[in-house]
């Protein structure tokens, strides 16, 4: 979702449709920024189907599922969490409303990162996110195996200083990269 909303921000700036990201190609395009001769072993995509948006924007779920299928076709492994309703209070008027929170995604990313490090399944792990909640996961991964490189590849306008500081290397995805790595129209 972090990457998706970043792509929407990029759309507002460029006035072009950029949400059909080819995540696998986008990740591969940053390989040159990593030290040595690296190859991608796997790309994992963590998201959740936004069923709650369906009533306001019909077709959301269909479009999302189609996009996930397209990603899977490019070899990306999908991990889907879910959205959970949460009663929230408006900070201005104090009235209550129902907000929706993406659940499981951050923990799933953190747990998967530690699993990869513990099982020695990679030399470098690249996290494509700007979510500070993942800082403890990065710190733990570096503690577990200091020889592994943890790279924070942060989406456009989703740069987080704390995340950049705790990773071995921090990069930011530029808008031009979003435009260059789009899935073909169906």
């Amino acid at each position: 979702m972090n990457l998706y909303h970043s792509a929407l921000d990029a759309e507002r700036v460029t006035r072009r449709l950029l949400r059909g990201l080819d995540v696998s190609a986008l990740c591969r395009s940053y390989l040159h920024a990593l030290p040595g001769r690296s190859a991608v072993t796997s790309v994992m995509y963590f998201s959740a189907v936004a069923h709650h948006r369906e009533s306001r924007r019909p077709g959301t779920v269909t479009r999302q599922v189609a996009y996930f299928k397209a990603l899977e076709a490019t070899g990306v492994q999908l991990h889907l969490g879910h959205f959970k309703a949460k009663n929230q209070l408006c900070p201005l008027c104090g009235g209550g409303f129902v907000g929706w929170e993406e659940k499981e995604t951050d923990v799933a990313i953190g747990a998967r990162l530690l699993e990869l490090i513990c099982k020695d399944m990679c030399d470098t792990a690249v996290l494509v996110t700007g979510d500070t909640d993942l800082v403890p996961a990065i710190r733990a991964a570096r503690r577990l195996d200091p020889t592994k490189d943890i790279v924070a590849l942060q989406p456009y306008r989703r740069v987080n200083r704390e995340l950049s500081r705790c990773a071995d290397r921090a990069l930011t995805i530029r808008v031009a990269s979003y435009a260059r790595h789009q899935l073909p129209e169906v």
Partner: protein
Amino acid sequence: MNAADAEECLAGIDHPNDWPRRAAQEKGIDVALAVDFVVMVANRACDVGILFSSDTDLVPALEAVLALRPQDPPACEVAAWAAPGGRPRSLSVREARLRRHLLTEGEYRSVADLTDVSRVLHVRGAVRIEVLALHVDDKQGDLPVPKVADHVSSRPDAHPDGT
């Protein structure tokens, strides 16, 4: 619980600007807990890790432990409160048989920590206000000395409009 412990607990809590009118929110606690759990079990710092929570966000942590230490019986177990009449909301992982511990009200009463946390929180609130006040003082130090007061005190009869 002393002030240092309270500080540590509060580190992961996000206080909105108008706190305490609006409730504070936990920030990233779930990831931090999941990370500690996976690291402890992976490093074999324990034989069995028991995850005491009903937060389904933590299920990926259990899955990671099952993947890292595939053994029988599993290296992780779950625990949850068992309220009388209610269905216990203990965590479960698909296709895994986790041992489940259910804790009752009696068990809660025997371990309850009766510290009044709100008092510790108020201490923190006071510290925060002090820091803000310090900032204000700093700023005033840079400002030119207020002249109106001098004027008034030295010439009490004079008035700005000349009367």
